[in-house]
């Protein structure tokens, strides 16, 4: 089950990186930007209800989000599956995952996510302390890969 979700997530993230991320960098009205965010969130698989367990729940968000993790034993690369009840948040989390998924611990330690979000004109969402939960998700990813 997890393997299928990881494969679907990887496919979705590739789609997002190829099609939606370039679109985000183009000027657009705010309505189009949010439509795009919600659309790219849909590229990631939905976490089945039975897998929405408390142990995967990322707290500190106004909406609930979940994170599952798998480390490939040979390459040491980290793979994630995530979901959120809120569609815009899921879109933002999907973008975050584009820069995180399939990386080694060393690569993740070097990651400068704010630079990527700056380039996409999404920096304000990353710095919000609460509410959309991006910060909490990032902390969870960091603590997960260290564990």
């Amino acid at each position: 089950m997890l393997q299928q979700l990881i494969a679907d997530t990887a496919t979705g993230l590739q789609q997002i990186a190829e099609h939606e991320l370039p679109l985000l960098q183009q000027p657009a009205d705010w309505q189009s930007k949010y439509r795009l965010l919600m659309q790219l969130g849909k590229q990631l698989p939905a976490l089945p209800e039975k897998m929405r367990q408390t142990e995967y729940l990322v707290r500190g968000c106004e909406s609930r989000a979940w994170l599952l993790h798998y480390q490939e034993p040979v390459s040491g690369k980290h793979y994630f599956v995530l979901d959120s009840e809120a569609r815009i948040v899921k879109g933002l989390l999907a973008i975050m995952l584009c820069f995180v998924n399939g990386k080694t611990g060393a690569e993740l330690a070097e990651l400068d996510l704010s630079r990527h979000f700056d380039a996409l004109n999404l920096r304000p969402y990353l710095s919000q302390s609460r509410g959309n939960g991006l910060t909490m998700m990032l902390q969870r990813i960091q603590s997960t890969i260290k564990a």
Partner: protein
Amino acid sequence: MSSFDALAFRQFFPFFNNNPDWVYLDTAATSQKPQQVIDAELAFYQRQNSNVHRGAHQLSQHATAAFEAARDKVQQFLNAASRSEIIFTSGTTAAFNQLAFGLMDTVLKPGDRILISALEHHANIVPWQLHCQSHGVQLDVIPLDPQLMPDLDVYQQLLALKPKIVSLTQVSNALGHILPIGSMLQAAKAAGAITIVDGAQGVSWQVPDVQLWPVDFYCFSGHKLYGPTGIGVLYGKQRYLEQLKPLLGGGEMISDVSFQRSSFAALPARLEAGTPNIAGAIGLAAAIDFIRQFDARQINQYKGELLQQFAAGLSQIPGLRPLTRVEQSAGIVSLQLAGEHPNDLAMLLNEQKIAVRAGSHCAMPLFAALQLPGAVRFAFAPYNLPAEVDVTLQALAAATEILR
């Protein structure tokens, strides 16, 4: 139409001149502050600042006089029988923590019951829970009726279990619903209970006359009544306040201290350990002066008109589902967009500079009972204008269009 002049009222609040692009509909979280409240706090620090009740110098005596005058102001505001019945706290939450801690052992014994409603916010739930289990005290909850008000039939049944404490909110923070507090308190008294009212949302709707109301304790926060943050009031009838075990120990609240034991000072000092929020109390007094210039009935009628205008507009936007029954609301409308998480709607409103709150509003058990992930809350105040209602409705229409 109400004869209340909202535009003139709004002029007292400098926040709006500094934030002309925003529609502020989060007054249930905190209200804006009129200039005279800001001035009062500033003037204290600029001209009078000294600690209270302890300096040998005259400056301290002046500060003490100003601080104690603020207590007198609150006493008049609530019509308390005595100034020693007014305890300054940091807010409603601190007041409830003092109550829950202070009533255990002294009033509440193992096997006793406390009764609250399903509309309570966390401040009237969690402090009880912190102590109930270890003291063997049972917390009962009045469920909701179909109008999302306390089910009064079940209330009567729960009162028959003879709760020692009945603790109710005056106005629901999540829905805005005004509880029939007068008759509920009377029933609680008839059942022999000590009564507590959470006035955090209610005090700006209706100021209690604590000698007329059958209420033993009343708690409210300054910052939801046009006052500063960090100041609140625990009112209690003298004989009940005297039974409270102090939550905080320290300076001010003692009469004699040795390393063996301490004896406590008289009320109100006994429940005010440490240096109080002096400037906050003075700011709260200024807020009371401010709000008493206006006719509360006119203000409430005006807020009702804003709610009616908003509700009429909502019915034109497909998919919106108000949880609040506007006719029983003190100024809040909480709603859902069918099939959508409230967070999405709130983010799209934030983008359009409409300040609202989304989520469970510190009332998670209520939303669990409603089986909803939360709601988007629009909290109207007398400084909001009909034009802002229109802008908000347009923003809602644009947001729902995107989510469709």
